[in-house]
């Protein structure tokens, strides 16, 4: 991208859109607060000229949302540079989108993803589509593919047991308290959540509706349907979860698994956050690019 870009900020109440066009590549980057029935969703899209392919990125949630944000940005830019349009967004109650964190549930994030999918894909009108997800975002991506036929799916570190997602956070917090010789308290995180109504997991607020919505997920109903192309990247940090997710899939589903070592501690966020980004981003962008070509042939 060159530094000399043309830009336009359209700040009318209806639009709430800002965009700039790279005069060198012609790529249009657009950020908007997309109006949905439940609130405005913060959406970023990158569209190369004459692009016919698009990828919807379904982010993870809570600490993972922050930890993975830069990687998703880099993946989006890598795909855009390969001529593929990309859509990223923040769930309602997360990031810059409207809504309260306390209202976040698994159903609500799936609805947001589906809403963005329908609205943005109708606008970009791609002929070929893919969805991408990370961690809990994998389950969101799976939910999208069950509503809309999508031939290409790329996934990072799937969560196989969503009901155990916050257990990891609870364990990380106990470890952090031990390292700092801080008082960890006698209560389990579930007791704390039930008592206080909110859980403090290393500075991330977690509310009961989200936890119970993950407890109630019927994972079998979110399995990928056989057919199409599927890639899973195993970072090597949550091997059991990835193995559990893979075991739940229909044996007829053809899944390509790439193992790429990424030092992502997920709940502990420090200077490790960007390690391994280039490798995993390049491998995923290459795979998606190839998958689009193969679908065409």
């Amino acid at each position, binding site marked *: 991208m060159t530094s000399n870009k043309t*830009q336009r900020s359209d700040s009318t109440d209806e639009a709430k859109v*800002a965009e700039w066009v790279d005069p060198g590549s012609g790529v249009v*980057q657009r950020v908007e*607060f997309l109006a949905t029935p439940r609130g405005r969703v913060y959406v*970023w899209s990158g569209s190369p000229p004459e692009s016919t392919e698009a990828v919807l990125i379904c982010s993870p949630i809570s600490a993972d949302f922050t930890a993975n944000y830069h990687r998703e*940005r880099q993946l989006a830019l890598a795909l855009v540079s390969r001529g593929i349009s990309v859509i990223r967004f923040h769930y309602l109650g997360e990031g*810059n989108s409207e809504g309260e964190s306390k209202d976040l549930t698994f159903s609500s994030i799936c609805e947001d993803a589906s809403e963005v999918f329908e609205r943005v894909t109708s606008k970009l009108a791609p002929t070929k589509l893919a969805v991408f997800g990370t961690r809990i975002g994998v389950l969101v991506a799976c939910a999208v593919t069950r509503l809309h036929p999508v031939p290409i799916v790329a996934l990072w570190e799937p969560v196989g047991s969503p009901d155990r997602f916050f257990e990891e956070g609870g364990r990380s917090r106990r470890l952090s308290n031990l390292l700092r010789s801080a008082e960890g308290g006698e209560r389990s995180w579930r007791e704390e959540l039930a008592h206080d109504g909110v859980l403090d997991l290393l500075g991330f607020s977690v509310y009961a509706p989200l936890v119970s919505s993950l407890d109630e997920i019927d994972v079998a109903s979110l399995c990928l349907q056989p057919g199409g192309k599927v890639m899973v990247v195993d970072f090597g940090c949550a091997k059991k979860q990835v193995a559990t997710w893979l075991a739940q899939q229909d044996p007829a589903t053809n899944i390509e698994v790439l193992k790429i070592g990424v030092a992502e501690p997920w709940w502990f966020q420090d200077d490790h956050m960007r390690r391994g980004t280039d490798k995993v981003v390049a491998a995923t962008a290459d795979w998606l690019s190839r998958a689009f070509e193969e679908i065409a042939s």
Partner: protein
Amino acid sequence: MKPCFEERPVFFPGPRETLAGVLTLPHKCNSLTVLQIWGTAPHPSSGMNRLRARFAHVLAEDGFASLRFDWPGQGESGGSLKGGDLSTSYVRECVSAVSWLREQGHRRLLVLGHCFGGRSAILAAPALGDLEGVAVISPPTAQSHEQAIASQISFRTLVRAAVEIKPKELADREWREQRIKVIKGKLRSHLPGGATTMARESSPSVAGVRQLLDQRTPVLILTHEGSDFRTELEQFLEGNGLSDEMASVTPSRFVVLDYTVRGNGSLPLQDELVSQVRSWLAELPVVMESTAQ
């Protein structure tokens, strides 16, 4: 309940690349705008656990407009991320954000800085024109992150970390260079003249704070017990006579909150930061005047 503000995504020209941000506009405006300048962690512009968004919304309730923007390579801005190397600051990006805000009609500005962003705000202060107030949360004042961290950790911790080094880590050049800088910083602070060197290296920050106070701009410096920069900040203010100078510009103050967590990794600490900044802003003469009107 409908929010008392509206938010707009914006792009504006930075010194090298286009920068992105979110502008929050309250329905009832007090004619003051807060520029949020944050750290270099690769988070979205909403911040960790939406802290920056929360600041924007709470400030809007009190009538302040605000802009939170991404550094180059971060969030939705152009360019590539350089990380939190304190030897390079983002003064020019701060100037770009201020210029853009003024072009949009936001003439009366305050700055809220955090960590690396707080440091950049202090360094940029002489180039930002008149400011109505500057609040910074745990800003490093030294020239390098490693040096600042080295001043906080004990020799025992260093030795323990050395024993636990894994061969895989040693092969990582970036990791190796960071650790060497920390060790050098630690050794240098204990050599004769080490303290003088540290003080000299923080002189741009001293000049920034001093210029603000000379212009009678109120300054709030907030930190907490667990911050990497608490001790360094205390030495910075005491060693350079800034505590006395701050006392002469009301309501300037230095506040150390009683939380031992690192970073902003606790919800009560995040609540306290918002509350402290909010009440400090309410004490500013310019805010009290606008409220009285």
